[in-house]
């Protein structure tokens, strides 16, 4: 246990790719936390999917020890956070567990949309903020201009911002000194009942449920019996450790410290992030305020390809939800797809990540249905239902009107791309709220329907601005509009999993786009297949997939049989990745790809 004055806890926050994880690498390295041999780039991005995509998805905590210029040794707990807007909940949760933030800004890019969003969150959490200007090794870096921008746009003092290159290691000692001298020590009392914040949790194949805690008051020791105040669950602390970043056992954790414990927790539901942990006896009276719940904005169905794997999927989803509090789920059944789950996400990248993790970490092949936002459907009876799934849309004769969620989007973009961005927002039914300039960049604020944004807005924005625009949004309000349910019929059979809600004026173009996409995505069959989009009974778009005409092996002699048989087995396995609708097989990938818009 360390006394409070020698502890500093902080999160590293920034816009995506500004270099948080690389800075964390240098801090870990310079303090000798990890041996040179074990060091690798973005060490904390340990998940396959993080390494493949080169982004952080999960916040990660590491404890490092630093001998400061004042001669004292400090315990530093750093939390590296993700930058992408879909994982903002990870950031806000992490901030609750610490007292300060390193605000990293890429000196070649300047302030971006998530830079702003992060600063507001940090201020909300009463954080001390240390601005860090990164990537000054690059010729395009303009630290002076970016410092000015921070002061102008964000309004925080950047005169003593630390200039660094997380890549070369330049300036890292200054960062460590700034952490010790400029960030506050945590507060807390040792001799009072235990109050620990449940910051995060995850499932480990060997240890079971692992719980990450920040001790606020009191002391947590190995062997203690603890109670989760919200769920009431009682457990024994079997293992107590700090993360360096591997687990290193400790006997006790005192106020201000961050660490993990395990306690043969069987019920995944027992652990809820934001809960307060206290001792079973001598309990704290009042729980900590907890976290603001996250609100999922995109929903879709996840079904096992092999319906026998439903129980495996349930198990996997429960365990994964433990590690991701922003993901919600409930059981669902569909005529075509059988039993599965309706899941809620913070955005489309979040959806893709969860689906990927379920498939990789748990080995379950999944079918993903068309993502949808939540509509408020007002019935003539005066009743209102929340529509999470277009398939559940009541008959139109009962519907009075439909409201859709709208967002306030903030986009920062270099002048030269402004015209394209305005056009994109306009095409997506946006209403401009504000347009200001900061240097050669414009900041535009738009009121946009969420359903026009969730699928591929971010991708489009990146591509039309060659990656130079940044984007952040908040859910704003619900508003009525002329919304209809559009069905897709494949070979004259409606495919519920492809039904979407759409604005009436956009229905034809979306319907045509979906039919064209599906025509590319569905393999040819031995018969021709009409693909139609319809509203009510009325067909508004139609494509025809021609019949398969050629699929035969030209040469097949004695030496080819074995290979041919394997190929056939492989194709049969490939069929498993398809779903049968009537006589037609639709590849799983089609369910999401069909929705991506090109314009």
């Amino acid at each position, binding site marked *: 246990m360390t006394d409070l004055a020698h502890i500093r806890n902080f999160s590293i926050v920034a816009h995506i790719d500004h270099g948080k994880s690389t800075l964390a690498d240098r801090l870990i390295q310079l303090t000798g936390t990890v041996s040179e041999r074990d060091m690798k780039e973005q060490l904390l991005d340990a998940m396959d999917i993080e390494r493949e995509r080169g982004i952080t998805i999960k916040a990660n905590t590491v404890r490092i020890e630093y001998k400061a210029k004042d001669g004292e040794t400090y315990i530093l707990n750093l939390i590296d956070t993700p930058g992408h807007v879909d994982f903002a909940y990870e950031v806000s949760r992490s901030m609750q567990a610490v007292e300060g933030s390193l605000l990293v800004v890429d000196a070649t890019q300047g302030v971006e949309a998530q830079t702003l969003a992060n600063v507001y969150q940090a201020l909300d959490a009463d954080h001390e903020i240390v601005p860090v200007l990164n990537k000054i090794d690059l010729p395009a870096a303009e630290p002076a201009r970016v410092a000015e921008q921070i002061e102008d746009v964000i309004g925080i003092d950047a005169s003593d911002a630390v200039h660094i290159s997380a890549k070369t290691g330049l300036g890292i000692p200054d960062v460590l000194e700034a952490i010790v001298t400029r960030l506050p020590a945590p507060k807390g009392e040792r001799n009072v009942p235990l109050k620990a914040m449940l910051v995060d949790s995850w499932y480990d194949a060997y240890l079971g449920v692992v719980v990450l805690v920040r001790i606020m008051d009191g002391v947590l020791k190995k062997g203690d019996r603890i109670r989760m105040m919200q769920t009431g669950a009682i457990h024994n602390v079997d293992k107590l450790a700090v993360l360096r970043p591997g687990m290193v056992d400790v006997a006790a954790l005192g106020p201000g410290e961050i660490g993990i414990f395990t306690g043969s927790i069987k019920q995944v539901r027992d652990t809820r992030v934001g809960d307060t942990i206290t001792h079973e006896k001598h309990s704290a009276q009042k729980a900590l305020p907890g976290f603001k719940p996250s609100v999922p904005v995109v929903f879709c169905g996840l079904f096992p390809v092999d319906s026998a794997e439903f129980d495996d999927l349930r198990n996997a989803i429960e365990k994964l939800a433990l590690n991701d509090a922003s993901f919600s789920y409930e059981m669902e059944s569909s005529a075509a797809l059988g039993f599965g789950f309706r899941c809620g996400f913070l955005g489309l990248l979040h959806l893709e990540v969860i689906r990927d993790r379920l498939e990789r970490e748990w080995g379950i092949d999944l079918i993903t249905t068309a993502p949808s936002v939540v509509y408020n459907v007002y019935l003539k009876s005066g009743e209102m239902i929340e529509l999470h799934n277009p398939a559940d849309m009541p008959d139109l004769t009962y519907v009075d009107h439909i409201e859709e969620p709208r967002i306030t989007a903030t986009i920062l973009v270099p002048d030269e791309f402004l015209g394209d961005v305005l056009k994109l927002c306009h095409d997506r039914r946006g209403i401009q709220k504000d347009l200001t300039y900061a240097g050669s960049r414009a900041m535009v604020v738009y009121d946009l329907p969420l359903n026009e944004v969730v699928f591929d807005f971010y991708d489009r924005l990146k591509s039309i601005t060659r990656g130079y625009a940044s984007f952040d949004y908040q859910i704003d309000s619900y508003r009525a509009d002329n919304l209809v349910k559009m069905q897709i019929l494949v070979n004259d059979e409606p495919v519920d999993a492809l039904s979407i809600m759409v604005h009436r004026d956009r229905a034809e173009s979306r319907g045509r786009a979906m039919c064209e996409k599906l025509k590319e995505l569905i393999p040819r069959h031995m018969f021709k297949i009409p693909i139609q989009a319809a509203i009510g009974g009325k067909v508004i778009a139609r494509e025809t997939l021609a019949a398969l005409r050629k699929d*035969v092996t030209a040469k097949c002699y*004695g030496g080819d049989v*074995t290979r041919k048989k394997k190929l056939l087995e492989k194709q049969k396995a490939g069929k498993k990745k398809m779903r049968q609708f009537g006589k037609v097989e639709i590849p799983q990938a089609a369910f999401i790809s069909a929705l991506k818009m090109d314009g």
Partner: protein
Amino acid sequence: MSLAIVQTLSENSLPPSSVAEDWRAGGFGLYLHWPFCQAKCPYCDFNSHVAGDVDQVRWRAVLLSEIARVATETPDRVLNTVFFGGGTPSLMDPDLVAAILDAVRAAWPLANDLEVTLEANPTSVEAGRFRGYRDAGVNRVSMGIQALNDSDLRRLGRLHSVAEARNAFAIARNVFDRVSFDLIYARQHQTRAAWRTELREAMAMAADHLSLYQLTIEPGTAFGRLANAGRLDGLPDDDRAADMYADTQEICGAAGLPAYEISNHARPGAESRHNLIYWRGGDYAGIGPGAHGRLTLGGTRYATQTPLAPAAWLERVERAGSGELPRQVLAPFDQAQEYLMMALRLREGAQIDRWDKLSGSVDILQKINGLDGLNVLHCHAGTLALTDRGRPVLNAVLRELLAEV
């Protein structure tokens, strides 16, 4: 249980038409692989290697030892066919071919109409050896002509011209009783009209057999790599390839050389009997590097295979007395699948009672009914065969028939 007991059981207690002796319906052949070529063609994924000097003495010893080994396992079987395939077997010394065929004649009782085929490349050098092959006992030649225009031959990486190929083929026709040649079509930048013209020229040249293959882009070949890099242009799309296939059926049919298999055409009676063994689910021994075999021994059917690399195969035979990798037992159901895959390639089709016996009566009729209305299969007098519409989509038909069986 010892092998001897299995043999007794199969020979004494099972009637010849039982599952265990199913191969008899197809016959027995010997395949010999000669893995060397003068150059590697960019489309070819056969087990072929370019080697400067081949020690034909060493090869002779090893090939003969393999023949002896297989013969002791299959004594008293009547041998219907021998096939020298490659690579380029027309690079073999006629002496070596003679020694092999002498050994074959000594090893097995021969069918009266023993067919001995040798694959040949159409260069003048090779044509010079034709008489030697004939004297050794080869009575059928299959020649890889591939194209009847010089620029396409160059694009296919061939070392011969059209004129050279025509000459070699004329010599072969003089020397051998039976001759066939191969063409590859659906080539880069080949139009439908151009193929129709070329095919008519081929009809004028052909004797009574010909193989017409659509160019297949095989992974791991030079063409495969080009295609992956998006640099193999002018290939026909599936629709045009389907049209060209239909043209081929029409023109060959009118010329009296209908397809008896997906890519093989013959006057009735002039079919390749060796290849028919494959398609009719017969037994065949495979000798040489990378050669596959299917052998029914003591009532069990085995899939045999040898190492692909020539050096590895030679050493294995010399060291272990057998070139074979461990044999795989083919369960009756595997045999059923293979039988259907192969037999449906033939115009004559597959016998439903053979399927029933091998598959343990997995109901194929129900699957067939599922394809009803598509007009891809017809069922007649206990035989299941593809229709003209079904032939070019055989793989799709097989996926349906064999799905979840």
